């Protein structure tokens, strides 16, 4: 019996309460052990405008919100007008006929009007239609009413039994009405018996920080990174994390550095504009050899750009962050679960090599949601603080003899924390000698400067072997390799399936997570075996393609790029691959046009 693959979309204006039914559906799915991927297309507006939430579920892992909709729930006329034309045969459109008129739908689309006036004459408020629609859709996918009843009861019992009764009543009415008037789907929503969890990328990053032992988190709000701050603030007391909202991003990164220097694991998150303000301090952290982790949740740029839309546009900003050359690690998690796992990995590297770590995610990952097997959220992670000395027991060297920046083979110098008796020392952003003496004024010395600079940069050699080198996914014998980085893993892997099924094109995927340092040799070894290589990335200028070439000279056969603010949909990549592989039109680059206006 073949697996279900169900996509439900709820659309309306900001403030129409789309989140709640979305959450309820998500919970119902994961509690039945169904996988989930959800993406919310929204705008930088608090009331009004257009929001479009897509939830997709299946017994097997779902990488993206997919290409097709099975259920559309328009909460206003605007949504109906924007999306009805995209509904295909076999799909269902549920709407409140009191206010919304369908217009002409494609053949085979089941239009399911319901009248809130009739179903709930006595209940006031716009949110009623949400409850009715929610109940109706559950009926059509064969979810027993009690599931919904339980959730509504839990949700409203804080208020009063009357409110519970009212909502359950409304839901019941919608549920029954759908049963009598609408054709249900040819399946009932299965239950795999193995409960799953679901979370958004920003939660995953914050929880990853908690797992890593972050004790200091500070931030300045910036979409789409603010979710990390919100999680941290909510859990500050429970987790024993100091959480501060401060005056600007200059303060954020510098406070984090101050906290990190005392021995805390310190983290912060922002988006591209805030990251731009942090670049000088990242170089300073590396110069003072203080480990700190900074997250850039990319959004559509340049400048303020489109704050609620996604892009992979900050790679070169991260590569060029700050003046001069300095050691640092840059990593781009590839899935929401990977966000969780990456943070402790990066903290261990930052501590071991006493340098900043930068995480590049984007709105798609950070505000997207997906299901996860709870077992994957392992908080019991290895913790490596690197060479920290001066802890209780260590015998301090004769006073003043401690060399914080001793020239070592590895480039890593044993680190004492301020407060350790006998290890008093000064760190500086000016170039300095082994004992911290400035090499910028009286003791300027070209030779010593060279040695100090080389000592720091040597660290990069030590980092590479400690990070996983990328592995090819899919059949080795393939017509084309889709090369991506970070958040595009999901959509690329779904595109692989479609290419095989729909186009009989066998493709595989090489997804790069660790960007600096880069496993150039390993990557070239893999790509050299590929017939063709197409780079897929979510920006205008092919930032990763250019970076890879700068490291390796490698030149791809084709590029699929998107920079309109919306994430790739699987079919965009499928079309791109076809266009580029087809010998007829010699296109080297394909830019899909986003069909949905959100």
């Amino acid at each position, binding site marked *: 019996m073949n697996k279900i693959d169900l996509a439900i979309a709820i659309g309306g204006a900001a403030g129409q309460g789309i989140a709640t039914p979305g959450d309820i559906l998500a919970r119902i799915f994961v509690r039945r052990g169904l996988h989930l991927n959800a993406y919310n297309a929204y705008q930088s507006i608090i009331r009004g405008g257009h929001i479009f939430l897509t939830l997709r579920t299946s017994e097997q892992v779902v990488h993206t919100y997919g290409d097709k909709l099975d259920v559309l729930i328009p909460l206003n006329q605007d949504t109906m007008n924007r999306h009805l034309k995209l509904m295909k045969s076999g799909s269902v459109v549920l709407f409140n006929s009191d206010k919304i008129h369908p217009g002409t739908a494609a053949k085979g689309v089941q239009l399911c009007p319901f009248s809130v006036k009739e179903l709930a004459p006595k209940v006031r408020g716009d949110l009623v239609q949400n409850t009715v629609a929610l109940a109706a859709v559950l009926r059509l996918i064969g979810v027993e009413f009690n599931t919904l009843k339980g959730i509504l009861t839990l949700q409203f019992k804080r208020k009063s039994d009357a409110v519970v009764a009212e909502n359950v009543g409304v839901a019941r009415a919608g549920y029954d009405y759908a049963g009598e008037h609408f054709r249900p789907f040819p399946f009932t929503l299965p239950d795999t018996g193995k409960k799953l969890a679901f979370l958004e990328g920003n939660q995953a990053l914050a929880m990853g920080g908690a797992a890593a*032992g972050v004790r200091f988190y500070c931030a300045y709000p910036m979409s789409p990174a603010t979710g990390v701050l919100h999680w941290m603030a909510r859990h500050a007391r429970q987790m*024993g994390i100091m959480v*501060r909202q401060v005056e600007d991003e200059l303060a954020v990164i510098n406070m984090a550095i*101050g906290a990190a220097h005392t021995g805390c694991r310190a983290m912060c998150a922002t988006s591209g504009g805030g990251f731009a303000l942090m670049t000088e301090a990242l170089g*300073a952290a590396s110069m003072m050899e203080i480990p700190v982790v900074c997250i850039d949740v990319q959004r559509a740029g340049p400048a303020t750009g489109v704050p609620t839309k996604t892009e992979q546009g900050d790679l070169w900003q991260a590569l060029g962050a700050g003046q001069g050359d300095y050691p640092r690690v840059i990593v781009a998690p590839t899935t929401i679960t990977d966000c969780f796992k990456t943070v402790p990995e990066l903290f261990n590297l930052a501590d071991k090599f006493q340098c900043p770590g930068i995480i590049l995610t984007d709105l798609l990952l950070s505000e997207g949601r997906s299901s996860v097997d709870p077992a994957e959220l392992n908080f019991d992670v290895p*913790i490596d603080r690197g060479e920290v000395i001066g802890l209780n027991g260590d015998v301090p060297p004769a006073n003043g003899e401690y060399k914080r920046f001793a020239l070592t083979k590895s480039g890593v110098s044993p680190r004492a924390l301020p407060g*350790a*008796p*006998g290890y008093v020392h000064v760190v500086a952003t000016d170039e300095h000698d082994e004992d911290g003496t400035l090499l910028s004024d009286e003791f300027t010395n070209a030779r010593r400067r060279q040695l100090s600079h080389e000592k720091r940069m040597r660290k990069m050699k030590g980092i590479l072997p400690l990070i996983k080198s990328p592995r090819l996914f899919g059949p080795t014998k393939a017509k084309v390799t889709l090369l991506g980085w970070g958040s595009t893993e999901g959509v690329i892997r779904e595109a692989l399936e479609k290419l095989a099924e729909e186009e009989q094109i066998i493709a595989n995927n090489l997804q790069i997570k660790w960007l600096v340092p880069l496993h150039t040799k390993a990557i070239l070894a893999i790509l050299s075996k590929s017939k063709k290589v197409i780079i897929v990335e979510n920006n205008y200028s092919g930032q990763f393609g250019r970076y890879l070439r700068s490291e390796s000279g490698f030149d791809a056969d084709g590029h699929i790029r998107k920079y309109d603010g919306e994430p790739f949909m699987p079919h965009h990549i499928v079309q791109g691959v076809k266009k580029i592989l087809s010998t007829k039109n010699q296109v080297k680059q394909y830019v899909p046009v986003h069909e949905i206006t959100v």
Partner: protein
Amino acid sequence: MSTPMEEITTRGQGPKGIGQNPLPKLTVKDFKSKVDPDWCPGCGDFGLLIALKQALVELELQPHQVMTVSGIGCSSNLPGYINANGMHTLHGRALAVATGAQMANHSLKIIAAGGDGDGFGIGGNHFVHTMRRNVDLTYIVMDNQIYGLTTGQISPTSIKGMTTKSTPFGSVENPINPIPLAIAAGATYVARGYTGQVKHLTALIKGAIQHRGFALIDAFSPCVTYNLDNTHDFFKQRTTKLEDMGHDPTNFQAAMEKAYMWGETIPIGLFWKREDLPSLDQSEPVLEEGGPMAHRPLGVSSETAQALIRELM
């Protein structure tokens, strides 16, 4: 990671032992650094350095219990000139870094120091917000009313009309008056010193370190090389102690009035002090128990982990 120092302290007090320290009594010599200051002969900053060391000695603080945090400037070279922990950070960022360090380890006595350009110019936003938060820091500004290290341009405290390399025809801008600004921004200990009066300055610094909350000391520290208007002579003739003027530092109006005095007499001393506001670390719930964040063990208990995961199901 376990604690790097014996005296884990509970919030509220600084490192165990202001006044009752088990460790050996130190002298100013013990705070001497490996390198000597490369300040110009006669630079006001020398006076500040002596006063600071003297204050630390009198408070019986040990080098490892103290951390200086500076930005960039002649004055900001201070951490290299005193035997204590130090962070010589970026231009303008001293107070941000110091806040992070103080909140992460409130058992350290943190003294932020730097210049007028560093603190009131590029660092102005951190200055205002650190004061309103009443972070438990001592902030010493070596105010020479000039950009020294960059060889002489106007600073936010340069007097109107001053000619410098960047204002060869005289500055047309109104200077900042740090004292009223600090009071209005919410600092709870606001003083002005003069590095030519080391004993007086030492007392102000001691008071600042002992004060629980944000303490500003705006110290006139003449730049003998680039500021030919506000010289040692200028201040010797004009500075008058607030104590001798019978000033009451708990009187807001009087504080504001005195703060605006500028001319034949320029008051130095403690303008404003309030002790009714808790410092930020005192108000921070996460610090109620468990000691400094920097000393706390890492890792998450499996119960907590389970609770977090349950939220997601």
